[in-house]
């Protein structure tokens, strides 16, 4: 159920990317997709009544295995967030320059390269 909601969010992002004319909206669509995948990954690793994966007392390591949430998706998400920031900055800078060149954010106007 929750995963499905994540997927709905993904599809909404996809809708924004594919159907919107405005470049900023397209960028927002990508952001939504990224959020949904990040959230999905974290949720995949969640365990009922799970702990944060930090060793608090050395005796309870076995306990940790049984009760902690999965740390690996967290590592993936951390990396993917930073990655998203890099892409976003590049995307936005391209969008700004495109606005300077074309005077519009409309992607359908930008078809000098065609055929």
């Amino acid at each position, binding site marked *: 159920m929750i995963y499905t909601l994540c997927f709905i969010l993904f599809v*909404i992002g996809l809708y924004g990317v594919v159907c919107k004319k405005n470049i900023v909206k397209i960028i927002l669509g990508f952001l939504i997709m990224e959020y949904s995948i990040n959230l999905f990954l974290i949720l995949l690793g969640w365990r009922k009544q799970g702990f944060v994966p930090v060793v608090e007392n050395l005796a309870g390591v076995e306990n940790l295995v049984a009760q902690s949430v999965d740390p690996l998706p967290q590592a993936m998400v951390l990396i993917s967030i930073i990655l998203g920031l890099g892409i976003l900055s590049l995307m936005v800078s391209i969008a700004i320059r495109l606005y300077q060149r074309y005077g519009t954010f409309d992607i359908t106007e930008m078809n000098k390269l065609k055929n």
Partner: protein
Amino acid sequence: MIEALISMLLVFMIIAATIALEMTDLLSAVISIGAVGIVVSICFLLVGAPDIASTQLVVEVLTIVILIRATIRHDLVTIDGDREFFGLTVTIALLLVFFIFGLKAFWNLPEFGVPAISEFPDAASNHYLLKGFEETGSRNILAAIIFDYRGVDTFAQLCALFAGIWGAFAIMRVQSKKKKKKEDLYHDKK
């Protein structure tokens, strides 16, 4: 309990994302996205990922700043509406089909709250949790993973961040071509 909370937050996110995409005013759209991002961060906090939540918060602020930079001076021209009707209909139909196919896959996933690592005792995460402190000396298993077990990921991620920001600088540079050349250089003359 947490399931219900997260579901509500997700529904909220869906609504906010839809608003963000359908809003005519770009600045409002960006603010809505900011709301989505912050709710994502809250979700992270709820499911036992406080480090990620804080990172997400910081990145979210940066994201909004960058996006506002993109929109603030350009909000005079607001392009509303979608692509032309036929293409749009086809695309939405395709999206719906994609959604239906995807649902089948998502319903087959393990139950929420029972991560796959509990099914696979050999999984890498179990090793990290069990031996992480012993092998790396880090109490925070997340830190052990990103700095030691999967250090290459972090290295590559730095490269990517560098490439993105350095690329943004390159794109934004004032003078990009040495010689002013004719615009019709690429033109296909008929």
